[in-house]
């Protein structure tokens, strides 16, 4: 155990000095649920963490490719964590986001890591927090978290980002459905992608009118973008850079982050299986079980 810890320390030192290989190995350790003691970022320069979420097939990865190029032109070092679901049956996963990120493999200033949702008993969110912290400490100035967003667990994932872009596509209008899940309240900007296809404008209008029913007058802007043709991307990046998140939105994010950690703590408890059995046999109540797990 002690040996393992020194191993981690060496890896960490080397990653902080700029070894890409060792940064990558550390990310794997974190993914496997190991504790890696990442030093607090003491410098005043904080990384910008951008969350991209939305239904499958709306063009998130293509858009991320554009964002990478945009930031690369500004001379920024960009890291991407692309999260894809793994099969609950086989545990296998096909991570193909890179295919649609043309700019992802183009040099020392871009780092892309694909992650599947398996492995972590408490969901990926808790390890994601450590991964972002590690990337930040290793000097990756801009970090993108990309995830398919359709349910509660995805909200928790993007809640770790400073700014969140919600992406929808033409003929979908899924975002209106997503409102039920509470994703829409987290978004700093809503983007309707594939603006070059018929139907995009209509979806944008539908979302706008749905938002106008809300009482908040600081609801997110809706923007039409074509990642494929690279139109509207610059405007999107300007909007997100200067968007100011209202206090209530920050609070929702903090709330989601707390819930993630809570889930993680309960689900990674070594007593979890025992507690489930005890509840099953009726020897303890649900409340007792919760008390044991959260101790």
């Amino acid at each position, binding site marked *: 155990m002690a040996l393992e810890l020194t191993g981690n320390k060496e890896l960490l030192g080397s990653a902080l000095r700029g070894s*890409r*290989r060792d940064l990558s190995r550390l990310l794997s350790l974190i993914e496997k649920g190991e504790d890696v003691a990442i030093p607090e970022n003491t410098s005043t320069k904080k990384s910008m963490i951008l969350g991209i979420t939305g239904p499958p097939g709306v063009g998130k990865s293509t858009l991320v490719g554009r964002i990478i190029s945009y930031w690369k032109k500004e001379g920024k070092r960009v890291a991407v964590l692309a999260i894809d679901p793994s099969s609950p049956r*086989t545990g*296998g996963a096909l*991570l193909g986001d890179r*295919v649609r990120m043309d700019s992802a*493999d183009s040099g020392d200033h871009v780092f892309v890591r694909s992650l*599947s949702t398996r492995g972590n008993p408490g969901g990926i969110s808790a390890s994601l927090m450590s991964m972002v912290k590690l990337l930040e400490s290793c000097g990756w100035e801009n970090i993108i978290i990309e995830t398919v967003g359709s349910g509660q667990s995805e909200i928790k994932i993007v809640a770790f980002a400073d700014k969140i872009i919600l992406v929808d596509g033409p003929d979908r209008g899924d975002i209106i459905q997503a409102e039920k899940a509470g994703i829409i309240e987290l978004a700093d900007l809503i983007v309707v992608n594939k603006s070059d296809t018929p139907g995009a404008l209509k979806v944008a209008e539908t979302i706008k009118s749905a938002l106008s029913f809300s009482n908040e007058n600081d609801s997110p802007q809706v923007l039409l973008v074509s990642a494929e043709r690279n139109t509207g991307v610059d405007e999107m990046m300007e909007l997100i850079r200067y968007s100011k998140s209202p206090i209530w939105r920050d609070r929702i994010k903090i709330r989601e982050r707390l819930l993630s950690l809570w889930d993680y703590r309960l689900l990674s408890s070594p007593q979890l299986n025992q507690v489930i059995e005890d509840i099953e046999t009726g020897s303890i109540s649900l409340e007792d079980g919760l008390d044991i797990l959260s101790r």
Partner: protein
Amino acid sequence: MKIVMAKPGLDGHDRGAKVIARALRDGGHEVVYTGLRRTPEEISRIVMDEDADALGLSTLSGAHDVLIPRICALLRDSGMGHVMVFLGGIIPKRDHEKMFSEGVRAIFGPGSRTEEILMFLEDASSRIGSNMPIGVLNDDGWRWN
């Protein structure tokens, strides 16, 4: 296993690579697919960023005798000698020995069954698990069939 599936060089057909990628996923592996026309340098960087255990390369263009040695050398030189490399696509019989000598552990040509590839990975995985490394750096002569 975490496996990167890549298409090196100028070769525009990836139906085969995609079929294999899906089969490996269904076999419980975590597969990262790179897309078409990657350079050896890009492939080696992707393997590094993804911290993969294995690299599957598919080539149909006939350029394998240039591309494969280059990729294997890049892996060895950048501290990724532990990564296991296997090949698929059109690799003429007469080139097999050269590919194996570069560190490749298996070659699956047309007609190969996905079950066989999964069996190979299982075997490879248990070897790695029992401390018999079979990366591009390890020269122990082991190969599939």
